[in-house]
């Protein structure tokens, strides 16, 4: 499962890909920032088209592992997150550090480009907006249905 509903642990992902033959492990964490567009963010909520998001994440891992001599693990948090929490985590291990970095970078870029995940930002001024579409959110219930 690439989508997670509880806090992400980078160590868990690294443990999935490290091995005695892979001397380099590159990783990336995306954290919830406290600001966006000049406004102060207090928390945000991620939702997903879950079966497609799982399928896209699996394709991204397979593509990276085919293109580089590496193992890749990734996870994306869904649900309500506070500022500073880990939203996305990627780890890539390879015998060569260049390949570990390249695979890690590829995975995070493709996650952002292709995986059907959305987020609403909750601002300190009480506003709620869908990131990307810029639409104000009217529904204040938990759209993830959890």
């Amino acid at each position: 499962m690439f989508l997670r509903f509880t806090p992400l642990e980078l160590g868990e992902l690294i443990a999935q890909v490290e091995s005695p033959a892979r001397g380099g492990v590159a990783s990336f964490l995306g954290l919830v920032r406290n600001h966006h567009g000049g406004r102060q963010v207090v928390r945000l909520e991620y939702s997903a088209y879950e079966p497609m998001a799982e399928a896209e994440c699996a394709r991204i891992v397979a593509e990276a592992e085919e293109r580089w001599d590496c193992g890749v693990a990734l996870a994306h948090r869904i649900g309500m997150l506070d500022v500073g929490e880990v939203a996305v985590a990627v780890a890539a291990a390879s015998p060569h550090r260049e390949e570990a970095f390249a695979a890690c970078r590829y995975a995070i870029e493709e996650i952002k480009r292709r995986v059907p995940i959305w987020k609403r930002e909750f601002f300190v001024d009480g506003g709620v907006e869908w990131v990307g579409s810029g639409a104000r959110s009217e529904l204040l219930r938990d759209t993830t249905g959890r």
Partner: protein
Amino acid sequence: MTTTERATLTVRILLFGSYAEFLGREALELALPEPATIGDAVARLRSFPGGNRLPARPLCALNLSQVPAEAPLSSGDELAILPPLAGG
């Protein structure tokens, strides 16, 4: 020769994020005269209350894969209308 005699296909529509809010629902069944493309389904959705806030060519996924607006629909397809992605 009447429209009721034309064959129809039924697809399941999924709406997410801001688009689900625009139309006030997250899923619906849509019957369309055959043959129909994704563009035809989107045009129908845009005629619904609140549907005018959907873009004319939104990002779409058919049965879990992204597809262009010209892609044909078959009965039983799951068509997801995707707002701008914001993962990561």
